[in-house]
């Protein structure tokens, strides 16, 4: 009643509007619920003067002195706001108008404070004291785990037997099963540090980089094709994978590993390897479908890179804030676009990145080629035409799209090439040589015929020129390229995209980090390099926690934080928060080891007693700790897709252990590649030793991935994946039983058993068990094998054709039936649940 009276009084008397008296009650009652301290829908906060004037993501809503132009007035007058059924009265609207017309004067609110959160993962990483425990702890890890177990009055499990332990740690560190020799050596080594010696040998194995690269490739959504409809091959994507494997083998510290991949191009005088590292960012999908809006899918790439950064380094679902403020975590849409800004001015470029051995030839032969090419260009007087084309492209770049010929040529340049739309805008003198070369190639292949009419091309003898140009091109030395990232020469401004829509830009935003996290390092304008350094600064509460948790997850099957992809409020809390923090602190500031060393981290974990425990189920804990959260034992884990392949190839002796390099295409059934758009994907089966390379080298075609990978839960390489599923399906059984890859492995293993263990059933069975399972069979297992071996030999005796199919090759001193029997046994071994698991 009083308010009502006052309102009336103010309207009637035309005295100046008083914010406290006339406006704030209206705001409080109708607006602050959604635009106040608790919630800032669409970025608008009305309870503080400065924020109120700053407006929403679409821009200011209050224009002091101009009520008619103020969005706030438009929204309340039209009834769009407030969204509750109770609308403002015309008197209230009149007051608001007057208040704005009079200058929207209101008292300054208290100074803006930093966003704070009491959520565990945003707190600084301390180094908790190692607790004292009753049982003997091998390492601080054990002390933290035992402290918890002792509190629950649960005893840890005994150490796994040596064979299990060797197989476990060898698979975990290198992704390959131990050989019978390695097994014999370990069993014979009675030194107290025999296990630690094995660990060091494995950490120094070149296969270590392969094993751990795969987990990183999952997070980086690595693939060998663009994705989307066209899904074109990316012939040089592997160069980045090659970089990852070697970086891990060299134990590149995780901070450097981070910086090079996010900002290698911004390092002073970047090396070829620094540039190759930026291939991480190039794993974004690219839509080359005809008729797409180029800007839309450029923005999609920026969004993908921003969300990937959040997922991979910070374990945050920042992608949620692409369309609206994050519903659970303290990340506003404005802050999302602050991160987005770091990736908004990038150019995708494919650049020469010669591998050792290529460099000399390339340096020697390239100038020869260039001279010859120049002669061709001069002979046909092409320089003027090229200049004209470049000019047309530059002009088209600044015009809205229409169907004129230059516009189409420009659109194709963006859609078909990689980065050349940016390159063409750069003065020729400033263009790196190889980029100019690429532009030239494009002009000859496509650019000229897109722009110029037929008559013009004929007059210039273009066909003849093209032939001569291509002839000269043959002299260009072959060189490996890398997919790289560069900062655009013309930086783009970043705007909030309202509801995440690229056609709907809101207010401009600067580069920035979410306020809940430490501030970006001061000094100079922020760049990707600043961002990368910020991520791996000692103060950052997430990066180290996320990284050590994922390492833990790979070594125990689940992270200390089970939701390794989400450290936000909706993720799960850590089971052992102090252990997590201690590991993160130790990772960053170790005592006596290199900071951020991944090998040191892995060594620390696998040498702990916690890791070495038996994985045998403990029925007495089935009720109390069904998911083994308390770590009273190790876990039995089904191997990832690639390791199942690798193990089968290794056991059978077929494995080709070449490290790094180009991908492979193992045999796959006809009709799989053909599922891709318009049957455009060709699967040229690898021949010779390439057939038998490890699983991480299998060409990954996003729209029609290799079936064995998908059957065994490999990620689809579209979004960052930090945690794979482990399923049990009949399709897996069919895959392992009947796929020619696994059948070949069984045949090779069968022959191997007969050849390497010539003295009879028992020896051969033992050899098979050692190769496949790293242990000797028990008597009852031998009995089972013998019984089915006999059954199989009887089957084959009656069916010679089948015997021939099972055992096409025979050896001296062994008949086909016998080899056939061993192939069948090998097939059993390679399908055993135990073979598919590390225990």
């Amino acid at each position, binding site marked *: 009643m009083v308010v009502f009276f006052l309102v009336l009084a103010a309207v009637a008397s035309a005295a100046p509007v008083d914010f406290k008296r006339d406006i704030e009650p209206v705001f409080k009652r109708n607006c602050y619920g959604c635009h106040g301290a608790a919630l800032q829908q669409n970025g608008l906060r009305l309870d503080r003067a400065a924020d109120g004037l700053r407006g929403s993501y679409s821009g200011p809503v209050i224009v002091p002195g101009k009520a008619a132009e103020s969005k706030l007035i438009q929204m309340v007058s039209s009834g769009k706001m407030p969204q509750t059924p109770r609308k403002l009265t015309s008197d209230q609207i009149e007051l608001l108008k007057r208040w704005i017309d009079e200058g929207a004067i209101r008292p300054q609110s208290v100074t803006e404070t930093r966003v704070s959160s009491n959520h565990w993962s945003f707190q600084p990483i301390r180094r908790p004291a190692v607790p004292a425990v009753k049982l003997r702890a091998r390492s601080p890890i054990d002390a933290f785990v035992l402290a918890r177990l002792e509190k629950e009055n649960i005893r840890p499990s005994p150490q796994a037997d040596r064979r299990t332990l060797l197989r476990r740690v060898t698979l975990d560190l290198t992704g390959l099963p131990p050989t019978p020799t390695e097994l014999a050596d370990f069993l014979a080594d009675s030194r107290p540090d025999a296990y630690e010696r094995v660990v060091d040998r494995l950490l120094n194995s070149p296969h270590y980089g392969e094993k751990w690269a795969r987990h990183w490739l999952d997070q980086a959504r690595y693939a060998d094709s663009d994705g989307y409809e066209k899904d074109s091959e990316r012939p040089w994507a592997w160069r980045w994978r090659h970089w990852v494997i070697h970086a891990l083998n060299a134990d590149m510290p995780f901070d450097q590993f981070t910086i090079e991949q996010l900002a290698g191009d911004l390092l002073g005088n970047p090396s070829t390897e620094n540039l190759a590292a930026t291939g991480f960012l190039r794993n974004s999908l690219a839509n080359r479908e005809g008729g797409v809006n180029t800007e839309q899918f450029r923005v999609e790439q920026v969004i993908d890179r921003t969300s990937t950064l959040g997922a991979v380094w910070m374990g945050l679902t920042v992608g949620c804030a692409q369309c609206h403020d994050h519903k659970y975590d303290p990340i506003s849409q404005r802050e999302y676009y602050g991160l987005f800004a770091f990736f908004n001015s990038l150019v995708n470029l494919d650049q020469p990145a010669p591998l050792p051995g290529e460099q000399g030839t390339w340096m020697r032969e390239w100038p020869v080629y260039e001279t010859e090419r120049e002669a061709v260009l001069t002979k046909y007087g092409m320089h003027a035409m090229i200049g004209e084309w470049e000019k047309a492209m530059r002009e088209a770049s600044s015009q809205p799209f229409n169907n004129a010929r230059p516009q189409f040529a420009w659109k194709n340049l963006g859609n078909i090439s990689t980065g050349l739309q940016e390159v063409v805008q750069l003065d020729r003198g400033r263009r790196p040589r190889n980029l100019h070369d690429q532009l030239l190639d494009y002009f000859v292949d496509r650019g000229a015929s897109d722009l110029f009419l037929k008559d013009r091309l004929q007059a210039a003898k273009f066909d003849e020129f093209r032939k001569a140009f291509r002839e000269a091109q043959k002299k260009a030395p072959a060189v490996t390229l890398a997919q790289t990232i560069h900062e655009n020469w013309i930086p783009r401004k970043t705007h909030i995209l309202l509801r995440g829509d690229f056609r709907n830009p809101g207010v401009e935003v600067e580069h920035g980090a979410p306020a809940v996290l430490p501030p970006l390092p001061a000094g100079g304008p922020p760049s990707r390099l600043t961002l990368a350094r910020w991520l791996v600064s000692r103060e950052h509460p997430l990066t180290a926690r996320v990284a050590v948790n994922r390492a833990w997850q790979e070594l125990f099957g689940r992270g200390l934080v089970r939701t390794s992809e989400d450290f936000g409020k909706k993720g799960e809390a850590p089971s052992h928060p102090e252990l997590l923090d201690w590991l993160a602190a130790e990772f960053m500031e170790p005592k006596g080891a290199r900071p951020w060393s991944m090998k040191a981290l892995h060594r620390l974990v696998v040498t702990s007693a916690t890791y070495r425990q038996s994985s045998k189920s403990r029925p007495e804990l089935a009720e109390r700790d069904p998911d083994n959260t308390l770590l009273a034992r190790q876990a039995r884990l089904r191997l990832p897709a690639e390791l199942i392949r690798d193990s089968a190839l290794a056991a059978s002796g077929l494995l080709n252990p070449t490290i790094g390099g180009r991908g492979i295409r193992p045999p796959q059934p006809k009709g799989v590649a053909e599922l891709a758009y318009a049957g455009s994907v060709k699967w040229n089966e690898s021949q010779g030793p390439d057939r038998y390379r490890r699983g991480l080298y299998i060409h990954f075609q996003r729209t029609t991935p290799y079936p064995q990978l998908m059957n065994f839960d490999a990620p689809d390489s579209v979004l960052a994946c930090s945690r794979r599923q482990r399923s*049990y399906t009949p399709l897996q059984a069919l895959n392992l039983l009947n796929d020619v890859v696994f059948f070949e492995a069984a045949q090779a293993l069968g022959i191997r058993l007969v050849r390497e263990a010539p003295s009879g059933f028992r020896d051969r069975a033992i050899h098979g068990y050692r190769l496949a399972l790293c242990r000797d069979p028990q008597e009852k297992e031998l009995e089972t094998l013998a019984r089915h071996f006999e059954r199989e030999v009887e089957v084959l005796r009656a069916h010679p054709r089948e015997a021939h199919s099972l055992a096409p090759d025979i050896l001296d001193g062994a008949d086909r039936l016998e080899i056939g029997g061993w192939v*069948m046994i090998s097939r059993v071994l390679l399908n*055993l*649940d135990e073979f598919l698991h590390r225990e």
Partner: protein
Amino acid sequence: MDWPQFRAVHSRRRFFEKFTGGIWTAALAHLLHSEGRAAEESLLPRKPHFAPKAKNVIFMFMEGGPSQLDLFDPKPQLRKYEGKPLPDSLSKAYGSKLAFAQPNSAVLPSPRVFNRWGQCGTEMSDWLPNIASRADDICLIRSMHTDAFNHHPGQLLLFSGSTQFGRPSLGAWAAYGLGSESQNLPGFAVLVSGRGTSGGVTNWTNGFLPSTYHGTVFRSSGDPILYLSNPGELSGKTQRVTLDALKELNEQHMADSGDLAIASRISSYELAFRMQAHAPDLLDFSRESPATLESYGLNREVSRPYGTNCLLARRMVERGVRFVLLADASWDDHSDLNEKLKKNCDRTDQPIGAMIGDLKQRGLLDSTLLVWCGEFGRTSMVEHRGETVPAPDKLGRDHHPYAYSLWVAGGGIQGGQVVGKTDDFCFYPTEDPVHIHDLQATILHCLGFDHTRLTYRHLGRDFRLTDIGGNVVKKLLA
């Protein structure tokens, strides 16, 4: 324990009864104990939110954007505008949302003849006589609209409810929600014809749902399911010896390690063996009458591939496969529309007409939901790119997302009706607009689900097929 749960446990118990020994009792106890998790992961049948009208779905996806103007939505008025541009207000509405064509391109009336079909008198094109003859079973929607105007994003939205990657597809949601009635076949089958779709596997992905719900592609040549047949000349006997040895050794190891999850591995091998036996039977058409084969168009080269898939779809539904996706490409007629669209109709119309009749005759139509659709429609103007105007016999249409047609039939659907209208240019719906999310909500409704409650927790929040939209379209329902 409700009935499906009881049946699930009961069938599993029967499975275990075949084996003796203490370890199996323990494994059974374990599986029963963890019923919640095990049920979620498995394909055993599950109960929806309310009594469903449809138990199965056959989803005919005509990839590329079939032209509604030439098939389902007659616009004789367009002849008045032939050769003239669209009214300004409409051509401006395209903004940047045309893939190739110029917004001011000339209006292109359809040369098709639209007759009234069935008791209901629904108008459909002369190129779909067999589908049209089933008009009384069909509910034609002329007021569909979508948000995407490129193929892959459009297909993502149609199948997963979002243009972002990573969400589960419709078939995966159905298999997740309902499980499978078949003990020998996967619950979500995919049959592909034509040249391969833009969306590829994203049209049948499990997204973030467990891998069990990924669509299984049945192939028309080679193995019907990947790796279904034994390698080389291996006989079923050898396969059985192998599986027997495997089972014994796996059981021994289950006892040693105490890991009861090994039971899942063993049962997955047994299901694989049953699939090896039953999937070929699925493809064995020798028991089908010659009249049936002919009705599906298997005797004509042009309709044989699609006819085979339609017949397979019926046979799958009979065997309890929950969701059959028929993915056909491509209906993306930017040019040569009259020739290409005719060919697509010739390939598919007869088989689809026969399938509807066959399902009905077998009493399966009432429990099987049929959907026929593309990812968007086509423009009422001719498409031409650059400066060249195509020859009169080469004309085509560009993508149009704001209004298009599709039809549904069978379980839960009121046939013999048309829902929705569009303006003279088939540009916008003028009555009963139906968004993709509405269609999805309605499909789930027919399967017995409240689309807002069929959710899966991922990255800390509950996701659903219809994202944040979707209303069940009551007019479609019987």
